[in-house]
């Protein structure tokens, strides 16, 4: 039964691609088989920082079964130019050098040589026959070290940009920006209580179960087809044409099903290498990554150092807040520190605030987006400082958040003004939740229990460009082609929005995600924009179909089209009995009224996904002897705009929460002194298993987003923002120890307890 007067929106139909996925029939990127396929493998740098003196591939090239090799020499030098690729701005020269190292390797795992051979095993054998001569350079793998004057420099030609101006200083600091509102000094002077704390977080990976893959094939006319699992087929095409310097008309990207992305599949890695090898061999070439390559050769999220200072009055009003945020960009500039700055204080209405943000290069893989990029690191700091403040002034932490909540019209420290948002509604719902009002029972066996809360915000991207193309079948069902690759069920929610608009069932829509030749330009699936942006296009498509149907009805009924009414799924002319029909009725007569009915729409709405707020409640149990933290109960409360398909909204929330729990309790890249990641596998990079989390309760608050006809608000990202802070607060309330360094793994918890007593 739908809600809010909708017929389809709010129901839970089986997703259209579901049967293929539960039967194993769905074709993901690595599943593709082509005649004459060759397999590629990539030789990667063993050093975190080195100059490439020489590459000798002769022994590899003469190994039986090897057909071609590729290095950076095979890529035309990309322009030092920025491009907006949907989730982040990318410098194309950096992107190209990241694909195959040019001159220097900047992290252990940096790709240096590609090889194509008759089997993957042969290709991997060939890698051992390649001789690369390196001049090893000193390396740096922590942001604060990289910012020092004597730090090893990654890019000798990179000068710090500070406050918008390029300085003369060559350093690893790519950018320093500052946002300021009001007068923080004055604000702190007005405060009764001031707390200032420092925090660190470690490098963390999105952890999608499907490794990256790309299969490239050139035909005799110089047309390149690339099959891949990606969050954006057009984004891949954009990057390929720039990196390979080929015309856009010569490239077709076919997105296959994708096994998780979370922002990490918004850049090309092996794709250009596969393309080069395919061109050289005249055969299709498939390159898939192994798991350790995924860890070491793709884009994790930054490690960071954050300092937060906050001042409040005794009655719980925030008078000032400042922060220093230094994020690791990895080997090339472009960390999400700016996005983090847009989120860090944004659940609150603070009159005086200042943010200083630093984007810093280190000898680690170039970072990429990870679900609300930058926001989780950011929230960890103020959400725990607030908890400390609330204890000092004796105020309930949710009451505090409501009292200082951001509202429509509140200004974020980085400038934008909040539109209609659900911040207060979300926090109130948390306060009234069953979880929050159920006392936490004591442990029976000497373990310590505690409850913590935390909030978070993610701004959600602008709607972006989406295209939809539909054709109506004679029975009134609709074939819908769209370009938003489906990582979480968006095919279904977009179909539902189209169905709602024209009075059909979700099952009447047959959605397909198609290649870049078959649909208009569509931005990446990411930034929580898809259900909003492509849904917006679906609604517009529905409107276009309604207009067309009215024209058809006008012919049938011999009345003016603009006098025809469409409501409740029925087209009608005044009250006339014979002049009524549903979409399906009219579709059956398409042949008589002008032929097949089609529509094509391309949208780029002004509004954004609306800004999402979340408040989470977490109960933990800590074993003081071992430092082990178990999550007993977890509730995620979130403003979801309008839940198109509630099951998938809940799923986004639960998935984000569990990623956040992993980030908070166990996940980290562990580097040794040689600058090498020692845990590049699923055994020692510890993501939560079924046994590590309880059921995740979800409370969906619906404050419709005014920028969308159905009130859709992006929901996918904010759920990962509060968990580390919620856990830290819960651990504090269980043990009396505040942990400010992630992850809060057992050794760290046990050490904090042992040092400071319980």
């Amino acid at each position, binding site marked *: 039964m739908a809600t809010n007067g909708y017929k389809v929106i709010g129901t839970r139909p089986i*997703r259209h691609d579901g049967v293929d996925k539960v039967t*194993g029939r769905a074709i993901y990127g690595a599943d593709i088989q082509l005649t004459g396929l060759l397999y590629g493998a990539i030789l990667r740098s063993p050093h975190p920082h080195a100059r490439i003196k020489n590459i000798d591939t002769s022994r590899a090239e003469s190994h039986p079964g090897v057909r071609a090799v590729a290095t950076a020499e095979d890529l035309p030098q990309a322009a030092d130019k920025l491009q907006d690729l949907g989730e982040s701005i990318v410098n194309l020269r950096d992107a190209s050098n990241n694909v195959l190292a040019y001159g220097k390797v900047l992290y252990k795992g940096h790709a240096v040589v590609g090889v194509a051979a008759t089997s993957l095993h042969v290709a991997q054998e060939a890698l051992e026959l390649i001789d690369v001569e390196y001049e090893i350079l000193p390396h740096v793998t922590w942001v604060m070290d990289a910012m020092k004057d004597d730090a090893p420099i990654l890019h000798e030609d990179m000068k710090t940009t500070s406050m918008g101006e390029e300085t003369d200083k060559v350093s690893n600091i790519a950018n320093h920006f500052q946002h300021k509102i009001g007068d923080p000094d004055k604000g702190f002077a007005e405060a009764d209580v001031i707390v200032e704390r420092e925090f660190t977080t470690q490098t963390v990976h999105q952890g999608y*179960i*499907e490794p990256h893959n790309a299969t490239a094939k050139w035909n005799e006319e110089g047309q390149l087809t690339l099959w891949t699992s990606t969050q954006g087929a057009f984004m891949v095409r954009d990057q390929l044409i720039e990196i390979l310097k080929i015309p856009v008309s010569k490239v077709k990207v076919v997105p296959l099903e994708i096994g*998780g992305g979370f922002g990490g599949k918004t850049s090309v890695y092996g794709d250009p290498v596969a393309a080069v090898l395919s061109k050289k061999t005249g055969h299709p070439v498939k390159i898939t990554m192994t798991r350790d390559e995924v860890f070491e050769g793709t884009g994790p999220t930054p490690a960071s150092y954050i300092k937060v200072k906050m001042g409040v009055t005794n009655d719980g009003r925030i008078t000032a807040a400042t922060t220093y945020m230094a994020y690791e960009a990895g080997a090339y500039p472009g960390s999400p520190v700016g996005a983090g700055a847009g989120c860090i204080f944004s659940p609150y209405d603070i009159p005086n605030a200042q943010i200083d943000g630093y984007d810093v290069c280190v000898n680690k893989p170039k970072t990429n987006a990870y679900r609300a990029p930058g926001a989780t690191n950011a929230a960890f700091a103020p959400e725990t400082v607030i908890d400390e403040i609330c204890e000092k002034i004796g105020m309930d932490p949710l009451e505090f958040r409501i009292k200082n909540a951001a509202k429509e019209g509140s200004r974020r420290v980085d400038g934008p003004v909040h539109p209609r948002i659900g911040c207060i509604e979300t926090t109130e719902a948390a306060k009234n939740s069953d979880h929050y009002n159920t006392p936490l029972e004591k442990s029976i066996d000497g373990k310590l229990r505690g409850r913590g809360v935390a909030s978070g915000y993610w701004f959600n991207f602008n709607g972006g460009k989406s295209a939809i193309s539909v054709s109506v079948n004679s029975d009134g069902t609709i074939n819908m082609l769209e370009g938003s690759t489906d*990582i979480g069920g968006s095919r279904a929610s977009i179909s539902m929005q189209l169905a709602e608009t024209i009075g059909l069932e979700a099952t009447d829509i047959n959605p397909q995600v198609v290649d870049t030749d078959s649909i208009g330009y569509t931005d990446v699936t990411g930034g929580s924009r898809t259900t909003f942006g492509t849904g917006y296009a679906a609604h517009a498509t529905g409107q276009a179909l309604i207009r067309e149907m009215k024209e058809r009805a006008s012919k049938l009924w011999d009345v003016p089209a603009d006098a025809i009414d469409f409501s409740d799924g029925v087209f009608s002319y005044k009250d006339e009995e014979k002049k009524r029909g549903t979409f399906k009725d009219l579709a059956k007569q398409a042949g008589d009224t002008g032929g097949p009915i089609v529509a094509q729409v391309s949208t780029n709405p002004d509004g954004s996904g609306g800004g999402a707020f979340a408040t989470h409640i977490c109960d933990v149990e800590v074993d003081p002897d071992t430092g082990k933290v178990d999550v007993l109960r977890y509730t995620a409360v979130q403003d979801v705009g309008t839940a198109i398909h509630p099951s998938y909204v809940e799923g986004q929330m*639960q*998935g984000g929460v569990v990623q956040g729990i992993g980030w908070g309790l166990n996940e980290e890249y562990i580097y040794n002194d040689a600058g090498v990641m020692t845990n590049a596998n699923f055994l020692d990079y510890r993501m939560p*298993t079924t046994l590590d989390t309880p059921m995740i309760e979800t409370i969906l608050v619906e404050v419709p987003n005014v920028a969308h006809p159905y009130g859709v608000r992006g929901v996918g990202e904010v759920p990962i923002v509060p968990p580390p802070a919620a856990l830290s607060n819960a651990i504090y309330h269980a043990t009396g120890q505040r942990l400010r360094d992630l992850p809060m793994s057992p050794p760290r918890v046990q050490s904090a307890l042992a040092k400071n007593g319980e």
Partner: protein
Amino acid sequence: MSKKVQVQTTINGEEVEFLCEPRHSLLEVLRDNIGLTGAKEGCNNGNCGACNVIMDGRLVNSCCVLGVEVDGCDIQTIEGVGSPVQLHPLQQKFLEHAALQCGICTPGFIVSAKALLDKNPNPTEHEVRYWLAGNLCRCTGYDKIIRAVLDTAEEMR
């Protein structure tokens, strides 16, 4: 490259014969030789379960089995769960509960859960979680998967 070995086995109820090198894993053979791409490679070292198949009635990670080891064995993959005309109750419940988002881990989970229910038709939530601990999912947070398996068990009893 060493000489290929001829292997005879039963896969999803049908006799299958294939040639492979000793170093080819069962996962590679299923995907590349036989065209059964339902089992996936997630980690290639036994830590994620995306490659799960049932071998002689036991759940195994096909990335940790060599193709040459399965001569004379009976193998069930995701393609053998349910039939072309009727989904297995687990598959149906996964759909109803929205227990999948990207779907890459789903074949592994379904094969693994089937192996559980074949052995223990009335598992507790803890038993389900324990059995499935070797199957990693990054999208769902596991909640709906566990519910789907418990619901299936109840329905099948």
